[in-house]
């Protein structure tokens, strides 16, 4: 059985893209969130093996969501999704507990590479 994934991004368009890439590779997308708060709630409910997290979201940003999730679930595997030029923020997210990152615009091969890395 392929790992379960929770996708968090405030843009529907982005969520759809990631969902397509991951589903095609056999991953199970079990939930979606559009804000940081939703991301934390969904995680509690679904306990996914992987989370993809956007940085900038309304109602609690991605970094804070990472902190909250890690606080409750230290083993959580979170992959940050970042736009170009957000180096410092990504580092902050990694310091908060995220495991790796991918950049937009997404290249499917790189996304899958990163996912494999963090799940191995």
């Amino acid at each position: 059985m392929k790992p379960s994934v929770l996708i968090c991004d405030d843009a529907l368009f982005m969520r759809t893209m990631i969902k397509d890439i991951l589903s095609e590779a056999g991953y199970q997308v079990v939930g979606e969130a559009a804000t940081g708060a939703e991301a934390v709630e969904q995680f509690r409910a679904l306990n996914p093996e992987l989370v993809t997290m956007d940085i900038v979201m309304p109602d609690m940003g991605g970094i804070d969501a990472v902190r909250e999730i890690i606080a409750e679930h230290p083993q959580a595997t979170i992959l940050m999704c970042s736009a170009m030029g957000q180096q410092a923020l990504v580092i902050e997210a990694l310091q908060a507990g995220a495991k790796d990152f991918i950049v937009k615009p997404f290249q499917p091969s790189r996304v899958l590479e990163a996912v494999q890395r963090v799940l191995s």
Partner: protein
Amino acid sequence: MIDASRYAALFRSEALDHVETLNRLLLQWEGEPGDLSPLEPAFRAVHTLKGMFSAMGIDGAGQRAHELENSLAALRGAPADDVAAALPGLFAGADVLEQALSVEIPSATAALPAGALQVRLRVPREEPLPGVRAFLALRKARELGTVSNLHPPEDALGDDGFSGELDFLLEAEADPAEVEAALDAVGGIDVLTCRPAEDAAAPSVAPAEEPGEAGRFVRVAPERLDGLLDRVGELLILRDRLQQLTAGEARGELAGAIHQASRMLSDLHQAVMQVRMVPVWQITNRFPRLVRDAAQRSGKEVDFQVEGRDVELDRSLLGKLSESLVHLLRNAVDHGIEAPGERERLGKPRRGRLRLRVLRDGAQVEVHVSDDGRGIDRDAVASKAAERGVAGNGQSAALSDSELLELITTTGVSTARSVTEVSGRGVGLDVVARQLRALGGSLEVGSTVGTGTTFKLRLPLTLALLQALLVQAGGQRFAIPLLQVGGTLEAAAHEIVGLNGRDYLRVRGELVPLLGLATLLGISESGSCSPLPIVLLASGERPVALAVDQFLGRQEIVSKEFRPAAGTLNLFAGATILGDGRASLILNSSAAAARLLEIHASGVAAAAHPGPASSTIVAAS
């Protein structure tokens, strides 16, 4: 993390400047405790030192500096009595800071733990957010062990300016191959290097070069100056060679070109020599503090002044000169100047006067150390010398200044009342005289009982390039620096007088001790042609006359660093390569003169033994 050892030399020299300033201010303050104007500049100096110690990781000294800052701050607006009471502690604090400067500054890579790996990573250009990639790699490394010496520092990873390269030391249990694989698995990075770190052969002294603040001074490592001078020296030798090769054959343009090159070389040489010239305050700045401390220890009151601190001399002379002066100053305080009570009884001012004067006299530097103390007791010296069987018959009346000097600079003759007195080694003037002679200089003394003593030191301004007289003696060529030559002449037989088996030359009514140079060096018996070529040496002690086989003319020579083989008579100041490419030894005239007088005093027979010089002269090249 800064690798402190790279900055060691610069740190030391700058910190020393600040310590000297601090000492100067404290001395000034001690003279006028009620005048608080030295306080703020002293505070600033200590504050700066504190910062410097911290930057170099010398935490102990940084702490002391902090405490010293507090002590100073507490004296703001204080009355003179409080200041006077606090000053000994302030001086002690300054000493602690100065001592901290001689501490070894450990190289950051010196204490490499066994098994440390040097790791270098690069994020390929096409990787987005390279800083974050590097950060992930760093995080992985930290999981494997301890990371240190991180370049660039971690907070630079978030900057746009991050180059993509990251290096650090990693102490890990895992072996290099495992570490490399783990780092590689991070993805998006190339592991360029992952191998055991060698002990860095980092020199702990960096050539401290600072861009000069507009028009002020530039710090240059001494080795570079010496290197520059060496090269100019070689060029000069080459010039001589060229001149020799083309002598008589050079026509028109070639001759003109050589002539021009020759002049430019002389100019260049002058310029480089100028660079090596250093004002004497570099050594005299420490003296006021030294004199004060010596005076305190021996219960004397001394008023010390330095004149001529801006006179420049060649940096190579500074070290030895400093030692000699320290000796003379200590002696003046310990043995020359009387205790305040005694001085008052004698009708002298309570505070003794000690003066250091530096003057330039043509191509020589003169340093006078004079005190208004009790003077040198010639009777005591004469009888001590007789008692020790050194020389003389105890008759003091006939002791001239130069004879007195000879005696007091002889080891074992000291008129110090007690050997346990502060300097602990008696007068020690023999050391001073020896050091000066080694530099090609000389020492003179003038003294009146009850009034005071003056020592005069003479030194040549420069050592490296000399005008010299070339002579032939015993089949070999020697160079005698012109500076020390009083004159040359050819003596007729009747001008040479023999007394008690010793030869003297009659010069202007005086009898001057005469010996053949070859005999002096023990290489052969000197010839006795007539007229006899004679070089008069006048290096400030007693004039002497050296007989040679032949005069070979004058030449400008470059003195080269000279390491004599063991057993060489130390009568040579250096060696040089003459225009024909062959080596020649340079005579140290003061040493030669001293030796001549010794031989004369002990009988000419002593000179008949062939000295070790014969084999050694061949060795010097």
